[in-house]
């Protein structure tokens, strides 16, 4: 009886661990995507991206991490379809629709500016 209970507990613990691992891995991938403007990262170093993020927060008052996440991930489908790619498309769409902002002189898509802000907050945390 004890042995059976032990096995059940072990399986349950393993299951929980796997769930947690998956969750944290997923969360980490999400955070990474949200804080990594793909195109801009090829141009600016991390320090500049953080600086842009800080200035963006001051300019817009979008300085709540959860709110920024909501703005960046506007529907669950974005996650399903691969957040990185979805955000990249959103950046292009911003330029096409004129959803841009000037931050520290950089003419940026609103989305990539928010990604910089997200990065700044993640770093601060």
């Amino acid at each position: 009886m004890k042995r059976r209970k032990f096995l059940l507990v072990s399986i349950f613990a393993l299951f929980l661990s796997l769930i947690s691992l998956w969750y944290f891995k997923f969360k980490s991938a999400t955070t990474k995507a949200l804080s990594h403007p793909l195109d801009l990262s090829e141009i600016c170093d991390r320090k500049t991206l953080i600086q842009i993020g800080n200035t963006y927060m001051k300019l817009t008052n979008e300085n709540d991490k959860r709110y920024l996440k909501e703005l960046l991930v506007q529907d669950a489908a974005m996650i399903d379809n691969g957040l990185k790619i979805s955000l990249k498309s959103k950046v292009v769409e911003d330029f096409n629709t004129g959803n841009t902002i000037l931050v520290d002189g950089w003419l940026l898509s609103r989305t990539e500016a928010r990604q910089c802000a997200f990065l700044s907050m993640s770093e601060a945390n």
Partner: protein
Amino acid sequence: MHIDARELDNNTIIEGDLCIVGAGAAGISMALDWNGNGKKVILLEGGGFEYDNKIQDLYAGNSTGQRYYPLRSCRLHLFGGTTGHWGGMCAPLDPIDFKKRNWVPDSGWPITLDDLVPFYSKAQKLFELDAFNYDLRYWQKEYPVFTPFPLDKNIIWSKMWQFSPPTRFGKTYKETIVKSANIHLYTYANLTKIVTNNAVNSIKELTVKNHEGKTHKVRAKKFVMACGAIQNARMLLASRGATKKGIGNDNDLVGRYFMEHLEIKSAELWLKKPFSTELYVFDYSTRKPRAELAFTEAIQEETRILNGSASLTPLLIAKQQTPQIDVWSNEDPRKSFDNLVANFRKSREKNASWKEENGNRAFELFTRMEQAPNRNSRIMLSNEKDALGVPRPQLHWELTELDKYSIRKFYHILGVQMGKAGIGRVKLDEFLWDDNDNSMPDQLGGGWHHMGTTRMSPDPNKGVVDANCKVHGISNLFIAGSGCFTTAGAPNPTLTLVALSLRLSDYLKSN
């Protein structure tokens, strides 16, 4: 033939069919066009064949408003004029430059680009340039490496430039002029007064003087002022005899609408990946043409901005360069010129390896934009007089909100287009960040391009000269050069001012 006016008897009367005042790009081009046609052409030059400091000093003056180069050194006063130190950059104006644009006050020439095309072709030869063709596709045949950025062609196009050696008119055309049988070049013959008849509808004669104390009179059937936009206006204003306002100035327009090009480092372009920029980056070692990024008529109209373009310089070099207005500060044009050359050399030498291994990714974007016509931007007369008794010029260079707005908007649009194309990002310089700031920084330089002080309009209430460059109300007085420009366009004016002068020459020959 050549006559040194210092060696003539005092009070000599010089007579001819046509008198051209000023032997710079405009004056020499016109004189050459009359070479051998049997008409007696008098070509007056205030200086000689070599630089002379006391002659140059006749150009000194003061300026107020937007910071500007010393008037003494931003032109050259000798045979050949300012071609003695120009850079040789040539490009024609665009069709839009001649049009009436409802967002650009006082725009609209009474002629079109097509009216100038035949004369542009002639001007090209004088500047030792290739064919009059500024189409990228034409040049791509010779330079297949010329690849434009993949940007929206409805918004951005490649404005091509050709480079003159640069032709120094004073050296290249001296022999032809001096050996000509019908061109009578008088050196050291400084115009000090234009004398009209009593009715003030015709020029009777000119008074010319030199530092040697000689005064002569010049009489001709027709007179052409080709002394440059500042000097032409100055002499018209200073010639107060029968008219108190100056010649051609019944409507208070002479000297007004002074324009320069707005030249300033404005932004940086950062590419995601290296891209062949052979088309855009100026190679000092060759005369290879190059392009600048320019906006289409449609986008200019939609966004209500002035015409302009942006050149690319690798940031590694550009960062080492001092703004040209800080470099060109000496009253002696030779020293200022040397400083300018040294500034370019310094940046190149410091960065011998400016070409990054895998291609450059960061560039300075340098603006070259027309200045909006502005009545308050003007040449006036100072209370001070030069050594020959002529009031010195006083420049008030004044810019408008449209100038600043246009530069800012230009880079916003460019930034969006670069983002759209996924090529890179544009970073605007700090003076462009604030939408409400209409001031221009002191680092703004001009291109040493003086335009618009005797602007062209069919209406005497709106311009000093008509479509044929004849001064309104004066039957035999004409103006040659960029002073006649109604709007400035973005390119350096030399090619256009010579084309316009050749058109005037053609008109005078046929009339």
